[in-house]
């Protein structure tokens, strides 16, 4: 028996060794687990890097704490493995702008 693994979808979050097989991606489709991010009303969430965050904050000249918030217990924060203090970049599909970026600070 062998697996055909093709990288259709990126593996999200940190992989724990005991969960390794849950994250096996089979033919581009995750067979074991349904990802919340696949739902049509959940936009793309990603954790921002320090550098990216800095440029956004300086663009709007604000502090991190002034951003909108997302809870660490939020199902999507859990899914992408965000921790308190991270900033999540959300790429929304917008009816008015086509695509819009939004940022949320992860809080308790």
């Amino acid at each position, binding site marked *: 028996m062998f697996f055909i693994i093709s990288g259709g979808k990126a593996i999200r979050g940190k992989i724990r060794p005991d969960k390794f097989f849950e994250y096996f991606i089979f033919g581009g489709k995750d067979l074991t687990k*349904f990802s*919340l991010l*696949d*739902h*049509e*009303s*959940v*936009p793309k*969430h990603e954790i921002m890097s320090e550098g990216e965050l800095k440029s956004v904050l300086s663009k709007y000249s604000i502090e991190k704490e002034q951003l*909108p*918030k*997302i*809870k660490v217990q*939020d*199902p*999507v*924060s859990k899914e992408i493995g965000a921790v308190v203090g991270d900033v999540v970049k*959300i790429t*929304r599909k*917008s*009816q*008015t*702008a*086509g*695509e*819009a970026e939004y940022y*949320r600070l992860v*809080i308790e």
Partner: protein
Amino acid sequence: MSISEATIDSMIKDLPLPSNILNALKADVIKAGVSKKEMEEIIEQVMEEYHTSCMEPCDAAGVVAAQSIGEPGTQMTMRTFHYAGVAEINVTLGLPRLIEIVDARKIPSTPMMTIALSKEHPEDYAYDREKTRYLAWEIEATKIDHIADVTTDLSQMKLIIDLHEKAMEGRNITIDQVKEKFNEELNVMVTISPDIDNQIIIAPGEPSYRELLQLAKSIHNVTLKGIEGIKRVVVRKEGEEYTLYTEGSALREVLQFEGVDKTRTSTNNINEIYEVLGIEAARNAIIKEATDTLREQGLTVDIRHIMLVADLMTCDGEVKQIGRHGISGEKASVFARAAFEVTVNHLLDAGMRGDVDQLQGVTENIIVGQPIRMGTGDVHLISRRRDEIEAAIEAAEAAEAAEAAEE
């Protein structure tokens, strides 16, 4: 001579415009075929037009949104119950529904789910009537009333349940399953009648009339099969595809079923969406439910106003209502809160605590009779003495020169 697509791309790539304007611009320019000089002209005109359509700084966006939603709200029907286009599923619409949305009620008055079915191959659930009906019975909560007649035998101190074979077959449930379920849930003596087909006899734990009558009531509440809270499931064919509509909502449970399309199944219970799919999905749900409610009444409200409301309700990472216990109740200013609802309580509490109002907002400045910090009221002129400015410029130049020298 028209320019190539790559040149257009490089010209519009760095413009500070939203992506759909860029796409429309690119498509039109390619269709028309323009020269480089014309393109520059077009970009300049587009940018100018874009800037004039943008909201001005210090504009009262919230007030405009409130009026734009409030005025059509006066034309809404006060009390409408409507069938959601689907056979007999009742949903609250009109003003009561809109109020429900902005009040962020935990449970709407008529919860309803739209269950999309998987359609990965031609024989999948969405295209198969039999499979769909089977799934519908799996989801719909089956109570004893659906499949049997219950009679109370007072002389023998027992309940006699006569099961209908046809009904049981339709719902795909057997007499043993019914017995098991009663055993689990009620902690009583359940026996299948030896003489008569499809009959179950239940006797209360202690032989007392009170127990018996209590039991007669409580067996009606036992969910024998399906999901608790899903009162009814309606199968409907839309185009090629079967879809299930339910009265009652249980998103988390329904997503576990095989054959349910996990990516397209949704509910009208915003709080449930927040718990299962997160804050961003909840924001989208607020926008969708509010626009649908308004549209159903034949009212058009620009989506931007509704988006502002939805963003405000979700900006703290949880769904907050617009009202005393949510947005308005969390205002920093005592005067602003007192101006909204329960005036005396707010003023009294503030007085006891010795709160200080910074007079930063609109409401409190109107109360004390000062210019508000909106529009022209938010512009402040700060003058500096001429010699100070000159000194500042000199210092900046000196720093630049020093930097250049270092390099």
